[in-house]
């Protein structure tokens, strides 16, 4: 069974069954990464294009390695330095990719909905690798993958997502995913970094970090982008760390076996202390490995996993 869809644009429109399928497939992909020879012929002859309108070393490398482990041909286009500078529109770029024979386009873009725009215009599949402040579905999936491995389940958990929710595509994908499993999702952050209307989704919103952490099974710490401070959305890094930084003392309110996640790269000493980041409670490096496995699963299920496509 494959995914009966051409594109992966967000967790909002995935069913729980589809997420289960991706996570189960990622388990078997995870084994490939541990092998001495990390290569299977599954996607041989398939062409995957990495189309990144925003710099991102981690996500781009993760997708590239995932594609290579599955023997696909990968072309990375650093658009920021090329066609955009020459004034080429996304539509023209899409048409070019189409005629070059791309089977799948992995896209990172600073505008929400940009991958949806592309997906409607390409016969090839599109994977959203982060669109503006909207979604980052493979990050959401790898977080779910890591939680499921550590906790053995995705239901009935209390998960606290902490930090800049307003600008976080990771937070939105996590929220969609976790709510589909019936977990209790809390978001906490400064009032200036919380978007409106989250309560309507069934998320608990608080400015009181301790309330969010009280009895939490999982704490997902978001990266603070320091340019937000320059825009005045919070007064200083120092103040942020004092009120919102995750420290061992703060974690005392959580369950004993709390799991700490962070999408990286971390600002150590700001949103998370090194004591927490390097402790057995944190799964930050496991997330990175899981990320490759999840992306292998997504590529496999969209391109070669027996799906009918659309």
């Amino acid at each position, binding site marked *: 069974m494959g995914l009966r869809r051409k594109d992966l644009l967000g967790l*909002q429109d995935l069913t729980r069954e589809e997420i289960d399928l991706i996570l189960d497939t990622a388990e078997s992909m995870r084994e490939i990464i541990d092998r001495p020879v990390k290569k299977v012929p599954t996607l041989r002859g398939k062409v995957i294009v990495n189309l990144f309108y925003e710099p991102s070393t981690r996500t781009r490398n993760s997708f590239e390695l995932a594609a290579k482990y599955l023997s696909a041909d990968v072309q990375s286009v650093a658009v920021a330095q090329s066609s955009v500078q020459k004034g080429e*529109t*996304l*539509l023209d770029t899409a048409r070019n990719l189409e005629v070059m024979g791309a089977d799948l386009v992995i896209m990172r*873009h*600073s*505008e*929400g*909905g*940009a991958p*949806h*725009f592309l997906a*409607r215009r390409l016969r090839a599949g599109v994977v959203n690798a982060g*669109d*503006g*402040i*909207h*979604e980052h579905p493979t990050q959401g999936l790898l977080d779910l993958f890591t939680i499921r491995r550590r906790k053995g389940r995705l239901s009935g958990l209390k998960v606290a997502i902490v930090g800049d929710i307003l600008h976080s*595509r990771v937070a*939105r994908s996590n929220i969609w995913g976790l709510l589909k499993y019936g977990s209790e999702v809390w978001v906490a952050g400064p009032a200036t970094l919380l*978007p*409106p*209307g*989250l309560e*309507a*989704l069934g998320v608990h919103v608080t400015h009181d970090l301790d309330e969010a952490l009280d009895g939490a099974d999982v704490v997902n710490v978001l990266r603070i982008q320091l340019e937000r401070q320059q825009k005045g959305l919070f007064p200083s890094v120092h103040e942020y760390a004092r009120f919102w930084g995750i420290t061992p003392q703060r974690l005392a309110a959580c369950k004993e076996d709390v799991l700490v996640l962070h999408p990286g790269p971390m600002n150590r000493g700001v949103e998370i202390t090194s004591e927490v980041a390097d402790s057995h409670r944190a799964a930050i490096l496991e997330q990175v490995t899981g990320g490759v496995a999840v992306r292998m699963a997504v590529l496999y299920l969209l391109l070669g996993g027996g799906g009918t496509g659309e």
Partner: protein
Amino acid sequence: MSKLLLKGGRLLDPRAGVDRVADVLITDTVIAAIGEDLTDPAARVVDCRGLVVTPGFIDLHVHLREPGEEWKEDIASGTRAAARGGFVAVCAVPNTRPVIDNAALVRFVVEKAAREAAVKVWPYGAVTKGQKGEELAELGEMAAAGAVGFTDDGHPIERAEVMRLALLYARQFGRPVLDHAEDRSLSQDGAMHYGRFSTLAGLRGYDPLAEEVHVARDVLLAEATGGHVHIMHVSTARSVEIIRQAKARGVRVTAEVTPHHLALTDEDVAGSGYDTNFKMNPPLRSAEDREALIAGLADGTIDCVATDHAPHHRDDKEVEFGLAKNGVVGLETAVGVVLDALVRTGRLSLERMILAMSTRPAEVLGLRPPSLRVGAEADVTVLDLEKRWIVRAEDMVSRSRNSPFLGRELVGAPAATVVSGRLVMEGGRLVGW
């Protein structure tokens, strides 16, 4: 001598107290007779049985894009769209290239319209030179050349002192200052209404406070100067309330609302799949805001419906949502949308719609409103309240087709347009083009 006989329609002119079934005989540019069973063998007859004959509709807020962006629209194409949409006159905003900020350019529009336009064109002049918000443009010279009001639309007048001076100065010439109310420090580069649906869609939010803070400022400045401020494209509930209170105090403030803000909400944006035809400034607001706009229009707090007809070339819209240009076309859909969304549903009386789209727009500009009276200039719109139609891009005569209503079925349409006695549209088709 040209003659036109509008036969058997329901004549409805709320301001003149007219509501009767009768014939209208138009001779040259004026209404020559109104009565039952009028006949004139020399007259072209328009069968208006089952239709509503009203004073001609006027759109206070239209981007004709000429000079400078004629590939999007020009005076000829924009006024043909207006004629098709049931309008007898449109007011052209001056954010063209170059900006219409002097008398020579006002005259250019007036003269070009006299040669090419299908309906009347009343130009606005810019409030400030180059619409930069710094120095007043020559408002008196432009008024003398035919400018019916002043606006920097497309740009808010950010400095309160400049707005104060503009209101004081324009008052001398009996012209309103029409303001695009937006505090850009609050709207930032928001792509849609700031709220639950911007959170869901992951689009940057445009805070309603950006408008409300500016409206409150404009109202206070109008109150202090005695000038007349007209708030363009009001979009939020709190703006409506600020205007309502100001009017109660006797402040010279008038306001307009667009058909799209009356018919659509931010939920429609989120549900559109990032369709850039749903991107405009101000953005489509919440359902509560929409309700307040309808209530404000119904009780007269909002004076007019104006389209903010903003044509854009396909290339400006076939891009990522956040990068797309703001604005939608509206001339050809306005009457249908208001009839369908508001009148048919009982939210707005037909009488109030006619006041808001015909009488009040003229009054806002200090002009004599069109009227169904013998001796009045024959500017007439005929409405078909029952016509069922689908908005299709291929049917549009505007150069641009960036409408959020494409594919939508509407009930109600303009059936004929008469401009100064000349039939320019009948049955949805332009006459004489």
